């Protein structure tokens, strides 16, 4: 396939922390508008790999191409300039800053007063409110500090931040982990909507059933290495479970036909 058709090409990415080889010659390709599910066991290196793409971690080796152009991210600011946005697993919120401030962090709208660039707080709060409503999130006031919000509310803010600024690559590291059912639906809808607009999405999740609702392709990692890649049509949840665990595994919690009946 022509490299021109890829939005992202990561090749040979390696990263070592002290004694642990967290990433070992990992590759990842992503086409425009494609949704890639990145799965793997705990500690497999998914977060680290995606942080490499968002510029938050600098790899020991490996190359990254965006839209066919070789890039080298020395900080998240570089990745943001290439329109790569990420929802971090730890959310990366500033606890003592308010909801709107967190959503707009690094991109605060400004207005000129006497030639000075002051924050346009009204616009921040108005637009933050619109975003939250679009994601179906109930937060009483965008002036609240995020430190006292519930786990799900915090996660929603992180998602709102990444999704709202016209990314061309959107990485979501377990975005639905703390979300209730309706909010999960909203996030899945969001993924479908942005990918329809041509945004490439990497979705890291342990909710395997979600993968089958939004992903085009699934990539499985195991102890810092790529171990498998599947087109979504060619696989099943049982197959994915076995790939993640590395052996035949019966997971009742991930079965299609589990659970109660009325």
């Amino acid at each position: 396939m022509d490299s021109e058709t890829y939005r992202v090409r990561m090749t040979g990415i390696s990263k070592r922390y002290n004694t642990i080889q967290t990433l070992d010659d990992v590759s990842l390709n992503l086409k425009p508008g494609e949704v890639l599910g990145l799965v793997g066991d705990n500690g497999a290196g998914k977060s680290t790999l995606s942080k490499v793409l968002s510029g938050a971690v600098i790899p020991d080796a490996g190359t990254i191409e965006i839209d066919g152009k070789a890039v080298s991210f020395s900080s998240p600011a570089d990745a943001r300039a290439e329109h790569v946005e990420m929802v971090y697993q730890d959310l990366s919120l500033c606890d003592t800053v308010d909801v709107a401030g967190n959503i707009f962090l690094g991109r605060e709208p400004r207005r000129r007063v006497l030639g000075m660039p002051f924050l346009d707080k009204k616009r921040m709060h108005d637009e933050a409110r619109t975003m939250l409503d679009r994601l179906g999130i109930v937060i009483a006031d965008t002036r609240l500090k995020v430190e006292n919000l519930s786990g799900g509310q915090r996660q929603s803010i992180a998602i709102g931040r990444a999704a709202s600024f016209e990314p061309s690559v959107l990485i979501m590291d377990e975005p639905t982990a703390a979300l209730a059912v309706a909010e999960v639906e909203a996030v899945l809808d969001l993924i479908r909507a942005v990918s329809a607009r041509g945004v490439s999405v990497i979705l890291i999740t342990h909710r395997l059933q979600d993968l089958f609702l939004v992903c085009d392709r699934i990539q499985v990692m195991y102890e810092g290495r790529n171990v498998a890649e599947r087109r979504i049509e060619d696989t099943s949840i049982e197959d994915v479970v076995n790939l993640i665990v590395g052996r035949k595994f019966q997971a009742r919690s991930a079965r299609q036909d589990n659970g109660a009946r009325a």
Partner: protein
Amino acid sequence: MANGSVVSIAIFFLVVCLLFSVVTDAFLTAPNLLNIVRQSAPLLIVAAAMTFVITTGGIDLSVGSVLALVATLSAVTLQAGLPWPLVIIAMLLLGAAVGAIQGFFIAYERIPAFIVTLAGLSVIRGIALLITGGYSIPVEATSPFTVIGRAWFLGVPVPALIALAVLVVAYLAFNETRFGRYVTGIGANAEAVRRAGVDTRLTTLMVYVLSSTAAAAAGIILAARLGSGSSNAGQGFELEVIAAVVLGGTSLFGGRGTLVGTVLGAMTVAVIANGLILAHMSPFLTPIVTGTIILIAIWLNFRLFRGAIRSR
């Protein structure tokens, strides 16, 4: 921001003022109040800048030394015949440069701010000493330079006007600009701010430039007011400044800062010092009473506004 603490220190400030108005005749007179604001101008200016530093989770122990260096160098350069506007500009630039050097080690080399600025405290005062040889260097009373420290404008002392201007700018920068946002954000979660694509290192460096420049301005005002530059100026000033900031409700752990609180904190310290002298307090009792007033008042306020002040 830390609203609870601001209310708390505001009430405390009013109570202290009330107390001294009742106990002494001289306290609530225009000359005395103007005296207080003039005396506290250097403290206010540096405390405003220090609020930025502390809100990022940093600290600047070198402000007293920078003040001394600038005070002595102002006197030296004026004596050498440099025109006074040039002296002022050169001194502010010197302050900015000192801050940039310290900020470089803190922000780019990631050495703890406490160590860098403690080394700075020692080195910078040492340079001031070396320059003066321990002599205090006079500034001609006729030099227009002394206007900065001694003159009055519209019935208000010039240092107070300078402090007011600095405070307004600091307030706007802290609350209404991106820079202020990032300062708070860095104190709360520096990695999150970095991940948002902000150049956190530059922002961190800048707060030390601010604090050193503010200390330079304070040094200029002090030299102008005293009519002399001495290398022992501003000894212990850093603790006084940090105390004002913390008293105002800014957290030493970063992420929570308030400029209104800082102003109230600084004025409270100044008013207590002034009021105790007016009340003819024995100098031996002054430190005891000062410490006790601050502690008891903070404590009572905390009892009234439970949760207002955070232990971190």
